[in-house]
């Protein structure tokens, strides 16, 4: 061996000591690594919430975009308003009419997806250490937003009708008694992601009352409101309170996720701040995609297309539920979604969905482990199944594979005894943002 050189130390990142404290949890994870396998066609992925955009009239969309560029390209390809295109904001009022939200176009702020709207709301309201009350479980990428602004997240239990008002009141009281400041209550009342449940009319009233009586602001995230399979559209909570509720909407599920257009409906003072924050974040939402959607809404039977999507997703939901009924081992339970994309599955006692994921991927089926939807390590026994993207036969095959995985895991776990003997592992450090 050659003469030894002087040892040189490296962390392979010259900025390792410069990152903000809020990035501490952002690490490579084996769960995220397994999702790289889920992208292979051999794997039936019941993980990602990708809308089935192939059901769109793509020729019509192509024509819309081509005509837009040809006739108004100089505008479409230019910067626009930080609040969003005024024509689109007027049209958004029509889109929200079925959920009962009435507003003025000036109450609307168009954003790069409702994800950006969520980010902006948290940005303008939350200081580090502020508490956000959310459902148990909640939308994975919302957790990423709360984490990025250093909020503390407190989960409020749900039942078959979503967030429990009694638990919400208790969570508010307990949090305040601990000297902490609750800033927002975040809810996905319709066809919940990942829970699959929906707040009924009375439940919405009770949740709103609990929030109001505590003097808090409700952040209502409604991506799936128009995707109820029986054709009924749940009334938005915002429809009954325009001052105490910020409503988030999106075209990602009713038109196309790739266009990245969403919006927030907010009271005047909030809205002004959101516009300024929007401008700081992106200067303005994309004119090109806003105008594409605007032209699409004006020229295409967009609500008929929503009905097409409903039917596509209903058929897939049915394939999922029938397969779960037929194949799941005893002790497995799941929610029965009336719309949207997801069912929340709880495994038999003793099983851990995160620990089981490698076995599932080896068996060529993927899901999102439940811990991804909690900020506090809960959810180990649960997982989210998404039925929006695969064809029905693939869904049935995926459930068949998953059933086999659960059986195998039951055998292994059964060999080694009770789950309480197992050491708790810390919660997943980084959310699975590429699966929302």
């Amino acid at each position: 061996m050659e003469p030894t050189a002087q040892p040189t130390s490296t962390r392979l990142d010259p900025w390792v000591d410069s990152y903000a404290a809020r990035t501490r949890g952002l690490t490579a994870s084996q769960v995220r690594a397994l999702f790289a396998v889920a992208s292979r066609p051999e794997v039936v992925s019941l993980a990602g919430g990708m809308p089935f955009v192939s059901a769109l009239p793509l020729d019509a969309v192509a024509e819309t975009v081509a005509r837009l560029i040809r006739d108004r390209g100089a505008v479409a390809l230019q910067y626009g308003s930080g609040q969003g295109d005024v024509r689109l904001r007027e049209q958004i009022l029509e889109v929200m009419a079925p959920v009962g939200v009435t507003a003025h176009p000036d109450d609307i702020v168009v954003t790069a997806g409702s994800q950006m709207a969520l980010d902006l709301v948290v940005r303008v309201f939350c200081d580090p250490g502020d508490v956000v009350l959310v459902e148990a479980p909640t939308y994975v990428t919302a957790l990423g937003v709360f984490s990025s602004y250093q909020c503390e997240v407190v989960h409020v239990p749900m039942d078959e009708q979503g967030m429990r008002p009694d638990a919400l009141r208790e969570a508010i009281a307990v949090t305040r008694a601990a000297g902490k400041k609750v800033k927002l209550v975040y809810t996905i009342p319709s066809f919940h992601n990942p829970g699959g449940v929906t707040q009924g009319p009375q439940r919405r009233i009770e949740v709103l009352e609990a929030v109001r009586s505590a003097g808090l602001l409700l952040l209502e995230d409604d991506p799936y409101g128009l995707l109820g399979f029986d054709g009924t559209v749940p009334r938005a909570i915002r429809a009954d309170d325009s001052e105490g509720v910020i409503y988030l909407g999106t075209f990602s599920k009713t038109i196309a996720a790739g266009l990245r257009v969403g919006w927030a409906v907010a009271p005047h003072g909030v809205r002004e701040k959101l516009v300024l924050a929007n401008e700081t974040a992106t200067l303005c939402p994309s004119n090109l995609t806003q105008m594409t959607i605007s032209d699409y809404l004006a020229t295409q039977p967009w609500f008929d297309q929503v009905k097409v999507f409903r039917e596509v997703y209903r058929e897939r939901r049915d394939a999922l539920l029938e397969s779960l009924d037929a194949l799941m081992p005893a002790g497995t339970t799941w929610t029965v979604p009336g719309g949207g994309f997801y069912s929340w599955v709880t495994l038999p006692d003793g099983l851990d969905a995160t620990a089981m994921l490698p076995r599932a991927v080896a068996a060529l089926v993927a899901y999102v482990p439940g811990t991804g939807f909690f900020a506090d390590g809960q959810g180990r026994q649960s997982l989210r199944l998404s039925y929006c993207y695969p064809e029905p036969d693939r869904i049935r095959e995926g459930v068949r594979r998953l059933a086999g995985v659960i059986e195998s895991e039951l055998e292994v776990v059964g060999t080694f005894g009770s789950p309480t003997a197992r050491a708790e592992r810390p919660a997943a450090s980084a959310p699975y943002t590429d699966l929302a």
Partner: protein
Amino acid sequence: MSIASEGRVVVLAGGLSPERDVSLRSGRRVADALRVTGVDVGVLDVDANLMANLAAQPPACVVPLLHGGPGEDGAIRDVLVALGLPFVGSGPSACRRAFDKPIASSLVGAAGVAVPSSMALPHATFRELGAAAVLDAVVARLGLPLMVKPTRGGSSLGATVVRSAADLPSAMVAAYAYGDIALIESFVHGTEVAVSVVEDAAGARALPVVEVVPDGGFYDYGARYTAGATEFVTPARLSDDVLAACAETALTVHRVLGLRDWSRSDLIVDAAGVPWYLEVNVAPGMTETSTYPQAVLAAGLDLGAVTASLVDLAITRG
């Protein structure tokens, strides 16, 4: 002009193992490094299209950079042999020996290298004999702490350090999620090092020893692939004699297992300066945080040039 610069080289990356993401990054990095040297490089995934792609445009040489499963257990290399395609790296049977941790440990141990005491147990053993009794026997024999891992795999996937007997059942379940047989080893305390080996016309040589110091104490998946989560020191902060012993150990592993072209041995150096063999990789990781490229750099070499040289070797031997 080298042969490598006159033919098309295909890097195989991806696959279906849990290390797919790591493999894709390894493959991209090596492909980029090769292109800088003037080699025409394509990157192919191992999927239903691979055979047709290789038949349509047979490469001058293949560089398999699949991690885990079929990439490192010899299967894909058996196929390459059947197709008559030269490839960089160990042959199929050498891969089979190396990828199975208990078999590799046994062969390496027989050659005089220090290996941890271990047991390789399929799940069926626990099921048939009763888990509690078997686990008691394991702890009685191997003591605590223990390292539990799948017998076949990498990147610390499914691996757990067990310090209390109460944690052993969950560690077993975690390992069995990746395969039917789990390896339980006595934990060796010491300095963790990675020793990379590369061959040239003169034979195999060890590159500078890389010391691995993960922030969390365990070189798990996050510590391996998150830049900044681990400190790497090259050469390792060991005496010259111990560094030489590490190099000799890695070369012995490479020789005894019949490896070829490149390998990376993961060792622990105990307080007495003895290198203990943990495992060897026949398709070493080549990501931005992997130790093999760091060793290449510390040796004053270039990854692209090293790989191109191995491509030339592979083509020459046919």
